């Protein structure tokens, strides 16, 4: 009975979704936020580049420049694996899985703006900036392939991103490779838009050039023609530089030396270690200022003074501030520093996850890396132990490294020490 009702609701919901809005061809939508300031002619050039190099959702182009395994076709594949007889079959399979499991939040073009997205907070990741927050690699690097598989497998606690562990390893890999391909596509679009603005293809630049001409003879079509000529001269080189650079960046993320690896194993989460971590967190150690409190608050509730200030929009010219108080991420969305009292950590709850957040910072946010500069290895572990103890009022740290240590802590707590 319950199952019946559920299915009925599902049917109704799908009908409702299918009924509203106009039916759209399966296509990648342009990055309006980024392209909006360009003249239409420049936008058309970018659309052409993307279509030529990446295709459409139904006619994908598996460009071998990128470090993505599309796999070779296997003409001898048996009937059960007949999809593998085609070239680039892995990208197609990844796309099919993405369209089934991911598209309703992350959108056809990976813009984080699928039909469900508007009901979610936090918003689904927009892959097109090429930035991913929760990863094991050093500060500014792309995530490794395994990092993304880990996220899809585990989900992101405290968000709507569920675990897809039941899909199994093979299919997780296919999805992640398609996501990496989508990210490279979107990143290429963003970077091209930046470059064309730099060439003078911005709507403002064109109107400025017209008004700046003192002879008043220069008309908009002349300026546009000049800009289009510069674009045509530069475009092939720009596309080459951008895509080669992105291929290098994604390949680099998978190198062993790109991963943040602690010099020493975790310091056991003893009371002393927790206490040392607390002092570091609160900037109470002379010569070891940290500023954790500015954002996360003295009690770790994520309510530091930074959350009440009005922040400047980076790169906004003329300089202006966000209309909403508090921190914003690189996507321009308001974001809250993690409330550490709840024990929900988006990038994972293992001590090594917290270690990597502190060491390398969080890409796309204000959280800076403290590793190698402000905090030494053992000091980061102390802060990890303190952070993991905050949900337990500092009396114990979650996930002790050894059970023995755990017993020791329990005895201490039981005896009231």
């Amino acid at each position, binding site marked *: 009975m319950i199952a019946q009702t559920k299915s009925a609701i599902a049917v109704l919901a799908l009908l409702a979704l299918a009924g509203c809005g106009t039916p759209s061809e399966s296509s990648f939508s342009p990055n309006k936020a980024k392209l909006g300031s360009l003249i239409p002619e420049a936008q058309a050039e970018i659309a052409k580049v993307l279509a030529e190099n990446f295709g459409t959702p139904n006619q*994908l*182009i598996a460009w071998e420049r990128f470090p993505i395994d599309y796999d070779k076709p296997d003409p001898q594949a048996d009937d059960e694996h007949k999809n593998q007889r085609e070239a680039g079959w892995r990208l197609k399979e990844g796309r099919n899985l993405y369209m089934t499991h991911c598209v309703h939040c992350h959108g056809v073009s990976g813009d984080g703006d699928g039909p469900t997205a508007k009901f979610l907070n936090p918003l689904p990741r927009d892959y097109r900036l090429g930035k991913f927050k929760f990863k094991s690699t050093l500060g500014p690097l792309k995530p490794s392939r395994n990092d993304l598989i880990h996220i899809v497998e585990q989900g992101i606690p405290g968000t709507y991103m569920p675990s897809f562990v039941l899909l199994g390893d093979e299919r997780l890999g296919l999805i992640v490779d398609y996501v990496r391909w989508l990210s490279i596509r979107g990143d290429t679009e963003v970077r091209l838009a930046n470059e064309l603005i730099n060439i003078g293809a911005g709507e403002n*630049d064109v109107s400025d050039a017209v008004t700046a001409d003192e002879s008043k003879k220069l008309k908009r079509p002349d300026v546009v023609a000049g800009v289009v000529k510069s674009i045509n001269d530069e475009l092939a080189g720009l596309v080459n530089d951008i895509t080669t650079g992105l291929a290098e960046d994604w390949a680099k993320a998978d190198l062993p030396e790109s991963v943040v690896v602690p010099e020493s194993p975790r310091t056991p989460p003893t009371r002393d270690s927790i206490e040392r971590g607390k002092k570091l967190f609160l900037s109470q150690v002379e010569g070891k200022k940290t500023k954790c409190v500015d954002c996360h608050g003295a009690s770790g509730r994520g309510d530091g*003074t930074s959350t009440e200030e009005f922040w400047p929009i980076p790169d906004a010219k003329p300089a202006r501030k966000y209309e909403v108080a508090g921190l914003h991420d690189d996507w321009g969305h308001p974001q809250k520093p993690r409330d550490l009292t709840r024990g929900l950590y988006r990038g994972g709850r293992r001590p090594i996850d917290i270690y990597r957040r502190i060491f390398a910072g969080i890409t796309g946010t204000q959280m800076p890396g403290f590793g190698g*500069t402000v905090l030494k290895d053992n000091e980061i572990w102390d802060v990890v132990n303190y952070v993991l103890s905050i949900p337990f009022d500092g009396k114990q740290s979650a996930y002790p490294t050894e059970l023995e240590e755990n017993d020791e802590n329990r005895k201490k707590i039981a005896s009231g020490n």
Partner: protein
Amino acid sequence: MKTSTSEPDKIARFWMGVAMIALLGVAGVGILASSGTTRAGTKEPIQVAVRPDTATTLAAAVVGADDKGTGTFKGVVTFKGTPPKPKLIVGKGDPNQVAKPEDRAICAADDLFSEELIVNAKADNGVANVFIYLQKAPAGYTAPAVPEEPVVFDQKGCQFIPHALLVRCKQKVLVKSGDNLVHNTHTTPLRNNGFNKAIKVNDRDGEPLTYEKPEPLPVNVTCDFHKWMKAYHLPLDHPFMAVTDADGKFEIKGLPPGEHTFVVWHETGLYLNRKLTVKITADKETEEKLSFTAAQFKVGS
């Protein structure tokens, strides 16, 4: 909790599923269909074209200009009209409470003025921190090896020093601090990866930062702990770049003879001149006096 579904449930689900697919097929505009999945009502077959990675060959290098001698481009950038007064950011003792209480002793030790537009009335209104550079090395030019010596990017009294920094790609920038508080250096480049690291108290060794690729325009640098702190880095893959000094003067040496198109960029006015074409002659100095109005600097006078 049941782990297996009972038979009637299975049947119900099956028929609901059939109904769903049928209805979607009729409507023809279901999400699954419109996104082109193989499952429901797609007409167009999904195809993947594999594209081999044939590198684009760019125009080959032309001729070296080494044997022809080189020229110099120098000049001065000035402010036309009455310059605006410098903006006070943090007053001495911080009466407006701009800095955090724990940082006041250092950040508000003295009056701290904005460095976004520095005009020197004593030097004919020369404007400091204007970038003049070639976006691309001249055709056929081979840049000299990247200097081993790092450039220093320091922080003192809650300001970056220098405010405008020139650096070659792959050359090391050492981010230092002379303040007894923690800073964080946060860059937002267009082509390179960003850098966001906390810099420890009185860090005299410095934290290395390297730009791999040339940037088309100077990179924004901020400190999120002290939001007024601003600086600009310009990494290029050749040495033809300059920043005006306190008198608004600049000089670029070693230019191959011929016509060059310089960019003149300033943080408030942005592109003061996108295409400043200058003819360089061997063993000669070409001088330009550049003057821009308050409107061009986008500031109220």
